[in-house]
């Protein structure tokens, strides 16, 4: 062991002297000193989540040895927390919605502090340069840039106007297409400001629809300890994983003696000492779809990065050393990676165990075969005037939450298992982990604190069983956090697919048949393999009216890192293929692409006719009384606004497309039409309870899981609107399986719609009782005549009583009772949001380099409960979708080892390279949703890839059917053309 060093440095103005080891990094030392704003994103510092001001300069503390800091000055965001109020920079980040999960907020605020100290009036380029080292997977940097501008203005003494949407007049009458006028320019304004086109059907409300500041803004802006890793139970052990170096191998033997002999090691778990209990790790409703093809530790590994063993030790370093001392003997087996080859007769059989049930055809690695149909596709194709067939290939990418997966488990004073974990599905995780730990569900408690992004990766029971097993084995708190490399190789990813469309079109340009065949690659385990591909079918065959449709899918096992849930959940794959396919058909038939798609896209009253036949609640046609229909849509308004914003006419202007001063550049504009879902009907359920406090405020408990999406804020706004109070009077708590009602979790674009309706109904229950108590106090006979507003209950004659007085009376004075409301909601409907996506690009036709210059998305999400958080969802979703389309990809060697397990080689967009990003919120009133809301979280993932692809086609005449559009792929396509 090395000697410790004594170091002294100035921390937020105070000298700190502490002992460190030579290899301690500054981030860990700062967190030991209670600076919880300094986060882990990666050991190599490229996420910037751990950035501090080091001698006044923004610097990643991950790559600064603590010893290097001796004699230096370090500033963290805690230095600003001298008052209860926020510092102007923190306040600016809160005001404009710059923090979603807020995981990296401390770094951004510190960077702003340093930048403005040096330059009180920075340019946008200088702001973006400052942010270039802080990777953000959530905001597309749009609102953080706005926050810096706002903070600068405030610190210069200028008055900052409230941050609110730009209200625009509609361009359509709500139904008919608008006539595109090239001379009509979109209104100018900051791209951070959402453009809102109100609906005449939607009444003005007090809290709903308003740009309220997020309820968690203060804790995030201050860097308060809010995330999983921001506690440290006494006696906590640190855990590490041993993962497979082979893509496919049998574990012949494991010898853990040397690891167990290492001082400080408390447990080494693997298949020899952990019960073999089958499960499927996807966080889904009971019963989890089969096959249950996983166990906590198996006798076989099926991808590089697969679990082999886990260690708990006194320190991370000891745990890592113990992992290296575990001696594993492998019998290496042949592996298969491409879904197109997995079904071949000579392909290796990936699941040859005898205890996994309901694999469709294990010999051919086919996990599921999914079929759904309406009409007679073959007959329609045989008689169609035109038939088109195309195949598309979409690739594997990772969600890349800046906070990696992390779980901490301990056995509490009642001998129950408590797991504090970064999860999107606390209730599913509890139900799924209990049997693995051989415990009853009632003896397991899952606590979901703030989460630093999930995007579906955390819709999984991934680490909870491991820390649970280790806590049981050691009877000590156990913490396991994935490294960035493990987050890439050992967590979850997006499913690669090969998608083939055959489409029949009549002489009028109407679709008569659509046949979609998908080979979905679910990697070595089923997890979300069934449901993701069913969503691919739904999204690939729903947004255009067509009398004959067929979906056929083979979901296959391979030896790639495990695909799972990723925001969009099968839709981005389908929409890429569909919108590219229809673009090409339009060109082939000589139609304007908008005109052709408009002939066929759905409208109010259209049947949603394939979705009922797909998914966990699939039914056959005979079981349906009628197909669900589209009841609200703002498609034409979305398209009209998007066309104007992008300047659609330029795509046909040779002077714009071929700039004379840049001979190797071609410009293009692409369009994609998008339709998504809102929750899973008859399945997704959310619960809420609300109780009145002495001062007229409310505690609201929800099982819904705010990942940074603003769900807590939106649900609070819904309740506040019902109860006639301010958002700040609703104290939202989510989620804890011991304390909050059940909720299926944060996925399937369900929270606002499902949990929001539960919140609305719970508030209505409480409101009813408040009105009755108010009627008693005001001596009014008809409680229904009472109105709640401005934190008071008003009688029809104008007399009123405050909610505080009602609360004090009901809690303390007469006929005492706790006024509270509880409700839960499951929906029979799945009202789709719609969007028009535009992309403007430049292609270097000599090198193949594509530069994206602008993205526009106009979204019909019903009533945006909070237009700022809603637009933030669209901005962030588009940025992720841009990475999917343009630069993100897993690269492997021939043995299935991932080659790019760090940011940089795995490229996600930085602040200083993002294209201009503009969001339109087209309001419609969806009667089935709370205050008219539909979903918004996932649809931004759907349109960027096809819009980009179609823009490249517009620019160059070359159609590319594989993702991503990296330079060499485009160059090769240009050369082949």
């Amino acid at each position, binding site marked *: 062991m090395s*000697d410790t060093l004594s170091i002294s440095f100035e921390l937020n103005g105070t000298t700190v002297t502490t002992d460190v080891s030579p290899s301690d990094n500054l981030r860990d030392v700062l967190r030991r000193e209670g600076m919880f704003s300094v986060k882990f994103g990666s050991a190599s510092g490229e996420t910037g989540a751990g*950035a501090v001001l*080091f001698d006044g300069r923004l610097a990643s503390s991950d*790559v600064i*040895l603590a010893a*290097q800091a001796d004699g230096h000055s370090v500033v963290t965001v805690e230095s600003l927390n001298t008052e209860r109020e926020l510092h102007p920079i923190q306040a600016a980040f809160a005001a404009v919605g710059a923090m979603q999960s807020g995981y990296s907020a401390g770094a951004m605020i510190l960077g702003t502090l340093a930048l403005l100290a040096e330059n009180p009036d920075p340019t946008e380029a200088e702001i973006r340069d400052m942010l270039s*080292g802080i990777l953000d997977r959530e905001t597309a940097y749009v609102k953080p840039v706005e926050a810096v501008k706002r903070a600068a203005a405030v610190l210069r003494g200028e008055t900052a106007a409230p941050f609110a949407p730009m209200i625009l007049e509609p361009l359509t009458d709500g139904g008919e297409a608008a006539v595109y006028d090239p001379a009509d320019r979109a209104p100018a304004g900051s791209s951070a400001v959402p453009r809102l086109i109100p609906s005449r059907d939607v009444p003005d409300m007090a809290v709903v629809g308003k740009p309220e500041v997020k309820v968690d803004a203060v804790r995030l802006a201050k860097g308060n300890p809010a995330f999983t890793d921001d506690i440290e139970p006494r006696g906590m052990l640190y855990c590490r994983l041993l993962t497979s170096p082979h893509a496919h191998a049998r574990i012949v033997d494991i010898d853990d003696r040397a690891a167990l002999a290492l001082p400080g090691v408390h447990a080494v778990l693997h298949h020899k000492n952990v019960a073999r209990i089958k499960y499927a790790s996807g966080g889904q409703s009971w019963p989890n779809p089969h096959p249950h093809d996983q166990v906590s530790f198996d006798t076989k590994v099926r991808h590089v990065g697969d679990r082999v063993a886990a260690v708990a030790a006194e320190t991370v370093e000891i745990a890592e050393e113990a992992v290296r001392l575990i001696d594993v003997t492998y019998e290496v087996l042949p592996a298969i990676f491409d879904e197109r080859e997995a079904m071949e007769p000579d392909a290796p059989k990936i699941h040859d165990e005898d205890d996994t049930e309901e694999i469709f055809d294990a010999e051919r690695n086919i996990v599921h075969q999914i079929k759904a149909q309406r009409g007679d596709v073959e007959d329609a194709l045989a008689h169609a005037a035109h038939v088109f067939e195309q195949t598309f290939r979409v690739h594997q990418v990772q969600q890349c939450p800046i906070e990696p997966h992390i779980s901490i488990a301990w056995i509490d004073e009642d001998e129950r298992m408590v797991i504090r974990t970064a999860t999107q599905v606390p209730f599913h995780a509890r139900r799924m982990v209990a049997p693995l730990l051989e415990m009853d569900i009632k003896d397991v408690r899952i606590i979901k604190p703030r989460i630093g992004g999930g995007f579906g990766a955390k819709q999984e029971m991934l680490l909870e069983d491991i820390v649970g097993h280790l806590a049981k084995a050691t009877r000590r708190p156990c913490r396991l956090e994935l490294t960035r490399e493990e987050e890439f190789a050992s967590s979850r990813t997006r499913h690669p697919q090969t998608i083939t469309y055959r489409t029949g079109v009549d002489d009028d340009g109407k679709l008569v048949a659509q046949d979609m065949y998908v080979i979905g690659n679910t990697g070595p385990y089923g997890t979300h393999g069934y449901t993701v591909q069913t969503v691919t079918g739904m999204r690939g065959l729903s947004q255009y009216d067509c009398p004959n449709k067929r979906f056929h899918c083979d979901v296959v096992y391979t030896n790639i890192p495990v695909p799972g849930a990723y925001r969009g959940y099968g839709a981005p794959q389908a929409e890429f293929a569909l919108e590219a396919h229809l673009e090409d058909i339009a060109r082939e038939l000589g139609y304007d692409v908008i005109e052709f798609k408009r002939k066929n896209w759905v409208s109010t009253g259209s049947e949603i006719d394939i979705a009922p036949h797909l998914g966990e609640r699939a039914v056959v046609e005979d079981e349906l009384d009628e197909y669900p229909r589209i009841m609200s849509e703002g498609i034409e308004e979305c398209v009209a606004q998007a066309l104007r914003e992008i300047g659609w006419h330029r795509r046909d202007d040779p002077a714009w497309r071929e700039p004379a001063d840049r001979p190797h550049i071609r410009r293009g504009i692409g369009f994609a039409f998008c339709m998504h879902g809102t929750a899973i009907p008859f399945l997704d359920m959310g619960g809420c309870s609300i109780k009145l406090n002495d001062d007229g405020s409310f505690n609201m408990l929800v099982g819904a899981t705010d990942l940074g999406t603003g769900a807590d804020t939106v649900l609070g706004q819904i309740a506040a609107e019902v109860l006639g109070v301010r958002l700040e009077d609703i104290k939202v708590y989510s989620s804890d399986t011991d304390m909050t009602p059940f909720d299926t979790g944060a996925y399937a674009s369900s929270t606002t719609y499902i949990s929001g309706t539960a919140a609305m109904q719970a508030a209505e229950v409480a409101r009813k009782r408040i009105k009755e108590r108010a009627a008693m106090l005001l001596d009014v006979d008809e409680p229904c005549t009472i109105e709640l507003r401005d934190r008071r209950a008003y009688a029809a004659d104008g007399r009123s009583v405050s909610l505080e007085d009602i609360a004090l009376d009901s809690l303390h004075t007469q006929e005492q009772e706790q006024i509270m409301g509880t409700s839960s909601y499951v929906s029979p409907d799945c009202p789709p949001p719609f969007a028009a996506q535009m992309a403007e690009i430049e292609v270097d036709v000599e*090198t193949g380099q594509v530069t994206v210059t602008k993205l526009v998305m106009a979204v019909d999400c019903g009533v945006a409960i909070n237009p700022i958080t809603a637009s933030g969802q669209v901005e962030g979703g588009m940025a992720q979708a841009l990475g999917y389309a343009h630069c993100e990809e897993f*690269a492997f060697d021939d043995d299935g080892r991932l080659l790019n397990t760090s940011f940089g080689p795995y490229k996600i967009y930085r602040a200083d390279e993002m294209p201009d990003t503009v969001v339109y919120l087209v309001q419609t009133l969806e009667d089935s949703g709370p205050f008219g809301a539909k979903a918004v979280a996932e649809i931004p993932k759907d349109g960027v890839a096809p819009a980009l692809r179609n823009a490249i086609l517009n620019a160059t005449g070359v159609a590319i059917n594989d993702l991503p559009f990296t330079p060499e792929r485009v160059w090769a396509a240009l050369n082949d053309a």
Partner: protein
Amino acid sequence: MPLIAAYHRPTSLDVAMDLLQAPNRIVLAGGTVVNADRAPSDLEVVDLQSLGLDTIEHDGDRVRIGAMATLAAGGDADAVPAWMRTIARAEAPSTLRSLATIGGTVAAGSGESLLLAALLVADARVELAGAEQRGLAELLATGVPEGAVITAVTIDPGGTAAEAHTARTPADAPIVAAVARTSNGTTALALTGVADTPVLVDPLDPSAGLTPPADFRGTAEYRLELARILGARAVEAIR
């Protein structure tokens, strides 16, 4: 087992050189490379931060950049020509360029480093303690001599320069980049992404003699084509 076994911070170059005589000791510059490697080792690091090697100043008709000057400092220094300041800032994002140093960049010798290509065309010479100074091209080809420490890099700040590159995204490390500079009628051209380190090439025939390494971002064939196109563009831009 620690990731590093011991930390030393000498206050004179002589002491630093003495410390570095031990075979298990390595130089710690900014730390963005050494400290990012969390694999265990028995290495000891010798931190050069207290040796005063971070100045950037004119030195006759050349500019002398101390080995411990950060990329951020290089990006801000008036003595450094504007075109190179831009490249220095682009070498690393904000949170790492405040730590990464010129000396560390030279020692790492990354074949993707646009800054090294810029230094090559600026006639960079590397000053060493424990060895004779030498041209950057020679040092990149042979590595830092055993027992020697980079103390500074000097450049010719004159002339006109331009760069051209191809990357997945605007701020991504280029797959191939070309930096050209002309001074006193002489043109120099350097490429990244075509060899293990950035290399000087013939401005009239940029791809001649190259055998680029391939990776998932670019095959050897593609990189050769980029070398030809981007080299020609960079040279054309300074004509």
